[in-house]
């Protein structure tokens, strides 16, 4: 007879399914699924697991279950809709308000308000995580300003001084040309895919003194077609077609450009200033190769550095117990190391013992004094080549920091991807026509949303 076996199998399956859907581990503990970056080097995984063990020891009623997660525009919404995100996950500043408005993340404002540092956030940073009523529903855990990353080894091979990186866009162009000619690698490369094309193009537009949107009251006006944006695209066009200094790949996204940079195939590229951690833990960049400097700014009073950051949020599906446990994890893992000496030291020590990077530069989510204090606590554990980052760290606070566009940000970035791709893959691309069309499309988008 097969039926008893079938019944047993069905019961077993039902039990497994029930267990998967429960927030209770069966021993009274609250199960919380937390996010860990995929593809980390073993040292970083060990450090993370150690932090999890420390948390569980301090909170014996909570059972943490790490789940690989990395925010990507194209997979995030599928995970969100499919309910497969961890209970605690991170999103960029650009998505904070939208997710809160659409009730796609849990309202944890009551729990966040009880945290001792709740009122101390840098106002620019805190806005990204606030609901319309001013309550913080998403916790800013990190902030960045865009920077120019460069390969010191390629600089040396090309006869450039790696301790004196370019400080104007003309110098970037001539350095790129020299690297391409003398090393055969791409002198300068740029992201163009999966909305990152728009992200970097907007960064350059800001650096030239432009803006991509103008907000007046409730109305948002798209300002993509400006002299600054045209100048940016013309310079890119000239680097690509006149100098031939941008290599042969014009379909980069964040992951692939990091890969090629770490592999020594790119001389310079623009990305977040704290990117060294990712480059080391995910792409095994050689520390000796790495250099970073501030983004060159045009001689224009409106020129500034695009800044953004990361928010920690709790899934909309979480019940009260998971919300409470989730906020405790956010406080323990992401925040305490920024504000509490013991936590900062423990975090840095754990990371350093596992050879995970400690000390990569970031922008403060609170004020500069708190940030400097934290750097002092953890100084002895710093294992990143800080001296190679001084062109950035010595100057990053002197640059005006500008927030990303606020309306339909990722969608407008998506509209700009084909614009920059056209300029880099079509010698005869009509920059004016491309921008005119992109602006009309963006305006239609802004009017609709």
């Amino acid at each position, binding site marked *: 007879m097969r039926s008893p076996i079938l019944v047993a199998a069905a019961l077993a399956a039902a039990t497994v399914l029930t267990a998967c859907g429960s927030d209770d581990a069966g021993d009274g503990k609250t199960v919380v699924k937390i996010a860990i970056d995929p593809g980390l080097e073993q040292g970083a995984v060990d450090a993370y697991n150690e932090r999890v063990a420390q948390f569980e020891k301090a909170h014996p009623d909570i059972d943490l279950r790490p789940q690989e997660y990395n925010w990507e525009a194209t997979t995030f*919404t599928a995970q969100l*809709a499919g309910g497969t995100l961890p209970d605690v996950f991170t999103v960029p500043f650009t998505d904070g308000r939208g997710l809160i408005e*659409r009730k796609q993340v849990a309202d944890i404002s009551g729990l966040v308000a009880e945290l001792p540092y709740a009122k101390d956030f840098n106002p620019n940073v805190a806005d990204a995580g606030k609901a319309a009523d001013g309550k913080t529903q998403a916790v800013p855990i990190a902030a960045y300003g865009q920077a120019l990353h460069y390969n010191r080894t390629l600089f040396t091979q090309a006869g450039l001084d790696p301790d004196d990186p370019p400080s104007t866009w003309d110098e970037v162009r001539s350095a790129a040309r020299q690297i391409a000619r003398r090393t055969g690698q791409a002198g300068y490369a740029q992201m163009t895919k999966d909305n990152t094309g728009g992200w970097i193009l907007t960064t350059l537009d800001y650096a030239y003194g432009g803006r991509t949107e103008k907000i007046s009251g409730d109305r948002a006006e798209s300002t993509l077609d400006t002299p600054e944006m045209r100048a940016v695209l013309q310079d890119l066009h000239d680097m690509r077609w006149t100098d031939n200094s941008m290599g042969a790949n014009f379909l980069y996204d964040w992951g692939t450009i990091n890969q090629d940079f770490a592999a020594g195939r790119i001389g310079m590229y623009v990305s977040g200033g704290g990117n060294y951690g990712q480059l080391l833990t995910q792409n095994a960049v050689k520390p000796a190769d790495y250099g970073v400097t501030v983004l060159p700014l045009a001689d224009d009073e409106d020129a500034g550095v695009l800044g953004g950051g990361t928010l920690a949020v709790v899934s909309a599906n979480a019940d009260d117990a998971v919300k409470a446990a989730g906020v405790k994890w956010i406080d323990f893992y992401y925040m305490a190391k920024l504000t509490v000496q013991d936590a900062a030291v423990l975090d840095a020590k754990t990371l350093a013992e596992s050879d995970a990077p400690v000390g990569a530069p970031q922008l403060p989510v609170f004020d500069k004094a708190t940030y400097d204090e934290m750097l002092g606590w953890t100084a002895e554990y710093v294992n990143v080549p800080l001296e190679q980052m001084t062109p950035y760290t010595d100057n990053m606070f002197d640059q005006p920091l500008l927030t990303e566009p606020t309306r339909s940000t*990722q969608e407008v970035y*998506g509209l700009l991807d084909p614009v920059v791709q056209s300029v880099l893959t079509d010698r005869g691309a009509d920059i004016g026509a491309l921008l005119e069309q992109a602006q009309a499309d963006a305006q239609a988008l802004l009017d609709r949303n």
Partner: protein
Amino acid sequence: MILDTRPAAPAHVPRARPRRGPRIRGGGLASLVFLLPMLVVFTVFSWLPIGQAVVMSFQQTNLVSDATFVGLENFRTVLSDPLLWTAVENTLWFAFLALLFGYPVPLVAAVLMSEVRRFRGLYGALAYLPVVVPPVVAVLLWKFFYDASPTGVFNTLLGYVGVDALPWLQDADLAMPALVLEATWAAAGGTIIIYLAALTGVAPELYEAAEIDGAGVWRKVWHVTLPRLRGVLLVTFILQIIGTAQVFLEPFLFTGGGPANSTTTILLLIYDYAFANSLGGDYGAATALSLMLAAVLAVFSAVYFRLTRGWGTS
């Protein structure tokens, strides 16, 4: 899949008696029990999602908040999107190139292989090998081949014969043919096996008779092989059209639709509607376009089979 297209010999079939009573009599219940698992699987994983997609195409939803009924708005949004016509053009271009290269290649290969007496199994295995390679791995492999720098695999080979490096995926005009080349390589093996199987059904006497009549290789292929394969060719043709109309994997993994939307296909556009916006995609527009594509393909298939009804046999 139809492998032998010869007309079935007429057989005497006794006329079935008119059925009386419920269908579950005469073994019907047992059949139903055996069918049940498959019915459940199909209902849960195929028919129910199709039904949900139809409903969703009339709704605005992000799958988290409550859905609202919007009538035909999603269809209007899709039809007024200028990118739709770019995607339709690109898909037709892909389908045309795939027909031009991808359709004859397996046929020629199968005919040649069927003529070979030794190592036929080895050739078959080699031809089928790309089908066994996981598609994502194949695309990653070909990305190396298509490296646009002068040191890329294909460009190095071109360099040997004095041809300048080509930009491959990095050029709006070259990207689509490059995708078709990989897709043909990846899919040809399966079609070759189908043709080879059909070719074994061609009676050797026909070739002998043709040889006696003085036919050479070309005339044998034209007058014997192709007519006997006609049924299979008709089916593989429509399967290829349906397959290429739904091309997604290659543009998604190779180019993400670039450069400058030159490889954005209809399925990639559907994907973008649903998933490209991280704040919750336009699932209504995505399902609306999916339904329109399904309807066009269904009508095309029906017309195709109606027009070719009499062509299946020689």
